[in-house]
């Protein structure tokens, strides 16, 4: 049986990675990811975890090490944030293109400049087209659960893609929360040993990462796109299995009090819990407001999202990163495209909030819902605004 512990979320993340029996961990410390890597280093140094811990000189090397180890058939883990992710990004494309099931926790943090160590989703959005599966946690328990789920999905022979588990920097990484940690036997029942389809082995030589001439590159990218699309049902299946094993349910798109809602807020990550409190308050005041939370960012669950959003008259999309000059946050761009593709056209208002660690409060969500409601009623043009920006 697992146990309920009071634990910092970063430590719990490291513990569950240890329970997944990883072979190789390569990581470079960066705020606010540091505690995850430090604790894994301790687990290896103290003999609790039989793994290679490679203290690399940069994030670029961390991902390169994981690529090499995964190609040799190892179960790998790394973790980073913000600038570290940016430095690593070159190799992240290679990890997904080579179909290596690396798992990475990203402690989401703003990108420089100005330099800022606090939480937003700049790194998550920067990673959106790297070909990695991306899930998002809202609390510490979900970080543990999604990491376990990540290995099961990544290594599934029908998927074989790297998975990034996003957890908000500080607001999750540095919180001490009550968490159910599974025990080793429970993890082993859910997560079978990794059996690579292809691996580097001197006895059976192969070439990983050969040149792709113009005659083959397009086909390589098509195959990768199909792999990402094909991953979605496996991700859902692995969550259903997770529920059977551990009793906690996850879906690509999750809802909170959406029944009969005229206005839907759409959020990603830990601000969703604040948004739930705001929805409770607004519902108690008789306002028909509900909440939709995106659990799966890649592959983008467009149909699942539209199925939920189409019931509302208006949607308030909350972005936590900038997509300069598009007059929209990166999430809203994709939400609008998905709605258009499915022939659904609710009133959409976009709010960019919580940049670089600025708090997003219950009152902020109330204001967003009120503005969206007002825009809908008055027929104001759809648009975007940066919440609480000082003029």
């Amino acid at each position: 049986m697992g146990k309920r512990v009071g634990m910092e979320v970063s430590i719990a993340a490291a513990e569950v990675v240890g329970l997944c029996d990883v072979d190789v961990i390569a990581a470079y410390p960066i705020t606010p990811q540091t505690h995850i890597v430090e604790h894994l280093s301790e687990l290896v140094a103290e003999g609790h975890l039989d793994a290679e811990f490679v203290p690399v000189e940069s994030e670029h090397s961390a991902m390169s090490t994981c690529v090499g180890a995964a190609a040799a058939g190892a179960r790998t883990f790394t973790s980073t944030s913000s600038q570290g992710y940016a430095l690593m990004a070159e190799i992240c494309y290679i990890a997904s293109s080579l179909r290596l099931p690396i798992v990475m926790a990203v402690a989401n943090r703003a990108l420089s400049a100005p330099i800022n160590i606090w939480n937003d989703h700049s790194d998550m959005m920067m990673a959106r087209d790297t070909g990695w599966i991306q899930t998002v946690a809202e609390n510490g328990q979900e970080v543990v659960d999604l990491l376990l789920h990540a290995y099961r999905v990544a290594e599934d022979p029908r998927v074989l893609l790297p998975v990034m588990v996003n957890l908000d920097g500080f607001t999750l990484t540095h919180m001490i929360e009550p968490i159910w940690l599974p025990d080793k036997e429970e993890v082993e029942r859910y997560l079978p040993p990794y059996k690579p389809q292809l691996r580097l082995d001197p006895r059976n030589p192969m070439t990983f990462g050969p040149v792709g001439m113009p005659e083959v590159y397009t086909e390589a990218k098509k195959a990768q796109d199909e792999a990402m699309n094909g991953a979605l049902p496996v991700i859902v299946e692995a969550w259903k299995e997770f529920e059977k094993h551990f009793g906690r349910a996850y879906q690509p798109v999750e809802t909170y009090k959406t029944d009969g809602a005229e206005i839907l807020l759409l959020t990603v990550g830990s601000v969703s819990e604040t948004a739930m409190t705001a929805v409770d308050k607004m519902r108690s005041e008789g306002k028909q407001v509900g909440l939709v939370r995106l659990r799966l960012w890649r592959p983008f669950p467009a149909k699942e999202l539209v199925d939920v959003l189409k019931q509302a008259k208006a949607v308030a999309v909350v972005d936590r990163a900038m997509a300069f000059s598009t007059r929209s946050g990166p999430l809203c761009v994709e939400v609008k495209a998905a709605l258009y593709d499915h022939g659904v056209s609710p009133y959409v208002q976009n709010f960019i909030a919580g940049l670089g660690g600025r708090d997003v409060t219950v009152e902020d969500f109330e204001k967003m819902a009120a503005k969206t409601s007002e825009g809908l009623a008055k027929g104001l043009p759809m648009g975007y605004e940066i919440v609480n920006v000082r003029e």
Partner: protein
Amino acid sequence: MAKETGVVSWKELALGCTLTEPGTAAQLKTGDWRSKRPVTNYELCNKCGQCYIFCPDMVYSRTAEGYYEANYYYCKGCGICARECPKDAIQMVEEEN
């Protein structure tokens, strides 16, 4: 699978574009990149093997008589052999079509 050109359907590509056998580059025709071909005048050739040594694409092979002949399946027409030949025995000749 059209090994000569590498042109296949996306469904036929190995996982991650991995090459599952060693030495597959030997099947790839690079001779169609060429605009000029090296032609050896065996009257001048002294069998020194400099063309064989310098060729970056392993085009030259030694014949039973000890001369070196080019395999145009691979030759990209770079001209290094002609430049390095100490006897000026190799001429680069325009491809006709």
